[in-house]
């Protein structure tokens, strides 16, 4: 395997609050390879978005990266000046947000937003930028792109707008795309189309994608690998098929079990008791231990590190590997 395009080591993000710093991301590490789609799943508040925003350097105060390092093609980017970071954004790393309705400036024509982005990063003339804009819109599957560049965002439907958002993120051909819940706001049928589009674009352009979502189905369809996050940490990371079929971490397992399936009806869903702890009241040791059937005294005091457990890498003292393996066997 070649060097990863994006490498995050031991990332830590904290929020300064009046009762001391609040650690929202705690020791997250992962590598993202060229052309790879790495999915991030987890419950709301697990720190998925924050990880993405940290990578692109857009954490709003009072949030701050307080530890670890982020490398883009080997170059550290977590210490860059604002201006240097700005040049990376859009050019090297692009980002897509969840809500296509609000991601576009309602007062500016689609074309102008595209042209503006292109000109910011690439030394081309306006006419050229315009031609590129039309091309981009065509690439993301907007029919009659040449005419529609003059439209305003509200003149598009939700699915179309998300395509525009994607076009904007791709405008300067970044190497890494962070897609934060790119399909959550969309209907299933549109979601399917957007997934197909993303898939096509990544394979055609060889971009690496950090795909953040809470929909395991989406991950399953498009991602190569998946990271499961819980309370600001990655609890399990590995190839999609393995995490889905043979999760090692009890949390991942619970998560998979609670997803209703198209194929089984009326079966009682597996459920994880309780809810994710608030950041202000994180238990010592493994954050999942209060909800975990397998937890023992050690889990309550000591924090497990990520380690290879069967097919995947997980952070658990009592991974589920053996049992599943037995079942699988």
């Amino acid at each position: 395997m070649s060097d990863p395009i994006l490498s995050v080591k031991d990332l830590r993000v904290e929020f300064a609050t009046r009762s001391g710093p609040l650690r929202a991301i705690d020791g997250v590490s992962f590598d993202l390879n060229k052309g790879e789609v790495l999915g991030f799943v987890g419950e709301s508040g697990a720190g998925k978005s924050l990880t993405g925003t940290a990578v692109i350097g857009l954490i709003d105060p009072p949030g701050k990266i307080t530890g670890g390092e982020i490398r883009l093609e080997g170059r550290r980017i977590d210490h860059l000046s604002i201006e240097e970071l700005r040049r990376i954004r859009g050019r090297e790393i692009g980002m897509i947000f969840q809500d296509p309705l609000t991601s576009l400036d309602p007062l500016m024509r689609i074309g102008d937003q595209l042209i503006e982005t292109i000109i910011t990063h690439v030394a081309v003339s306006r006419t050229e930028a315009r031609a590129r804009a039309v091309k981009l819109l065509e690439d993301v599957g907007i029919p009659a792109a040449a005419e529609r560049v003059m439209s305003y965002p509200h003149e598009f439907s939700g699915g179309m707008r998300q395509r525009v958002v994607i076009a904007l993120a791709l405008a300067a051909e970044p190497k890494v795309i962070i897609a934060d819940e790119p399909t959550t706001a969309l209907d299933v049928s549109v979601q399917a189309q957007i997934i197909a589009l993303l898939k096509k674009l990544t394979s055609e352009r060889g971009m690496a994608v950090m795909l953040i979502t809470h929909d395991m189905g989406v991950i399953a369809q498009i991602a190569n690998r998946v990271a499961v996050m819980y309370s600001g940490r990655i609890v399990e990371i590995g190839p999609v098929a393995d995490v889905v079929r043979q999760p090692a971490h009890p949390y991942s397992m619970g998560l998979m079990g609670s997803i209703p399936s198209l194929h089984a009806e009326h079966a009682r869903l597996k459920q994880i008791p309780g809810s994710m702890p608030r950041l202000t009241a994180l238990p010592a040791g493994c954050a999942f231990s209060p909800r975990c059937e397998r937890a023992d005294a050690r889990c309550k005091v000591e924090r497990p590190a990520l380690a290879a457990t069967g097919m995947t890498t997980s952070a658990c003292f009592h991974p589920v590997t053996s049992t599943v393996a037995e079942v699988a066997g």
Partner: protein
Amino acid sequence: MLAFLIRRLFEAALVMIVVAIVAFTLFRFVGDPVSQMVSQDATIAQREALKAELGLNDPLIVQCAHFIWKSLHFDFGISYKFREPVVNLLGQRMPATLELAAIASLFAIGIGIPLGVYTGINRDSLLTRVIMAGSLIGVSLPTFLIGILLIYLFAVTLHWLPSYGRGETTSFFGLWQTGLLTSGGLRALVLPAVTLGLFQLTLVMRLVRSEMMEVLRTDYIRFGRARGLTNRAIYFAHALKNTLVPVITVIGVEIGTLIAFSIITETVFQWPGMGLLFIQSVQFADIPIMAAYLLLSAVIFVTLNLVVDILYMLIDPRIRVAVRA
């Protein structure tokens, strides 16, 4: 679009009629015009005759209809006090007030928006805190006190600026006396305009600031940053423009209130505008002037609203659509 404008005009007309009725009824009962007009030794018979002549004995409805009908022809009658047609008086006074209000709003907007943008962007800088605290003083001191203090400081103590009046004015085709073309006129504008505009400046600044802060948190700004747009593009091409929609409404309303607030400023600075005329006529129960003033300020307000609506449409494509649909 046309339909929208027509509807707006229709609504405006409705508002105007209500204002006219209100103006008429209110003023019909304030003061006693007759006793203002006759000499102190006039007999009761003379008074009655005058009352009849003024139409004050007709049924109220008739008086009111008459009043509205005449107002439509710019006939507001003749001032009891100045013995001149009210139209002429307003014609003389309006330029002064409009120039004052215009300069005051330029001052308020021209300084308020940049300050608002600055403080909105630099939320917690020291300068922001200073500006924010200072701006509160602008809304906490009564206008008349500010005016008096400014006169005391800049006119009496420092001798920099004149203390009252419009200074030198020049005529514009005999229609419009302007103080904007002479240095004396401009100097005379400074203190009243600052006094009048200070309150609005604060409002505009604070509004721009809070809108700016809100817009800066929106997804499209975040997305703009994520695309690596320059700060300039983010702040001005995107944020400020989006801020303007609500700001324009407020500015429209505030300019309307400037006209009314000029009553105080004009009193303090003896500025020969409509506000001064109004307060003079209030004390004299000069009904024609008061009624006309009210109608005029309503017209100005309604016009401003219309302009705001049109600006709205120019700025915000979504409204254009909503209007078309």
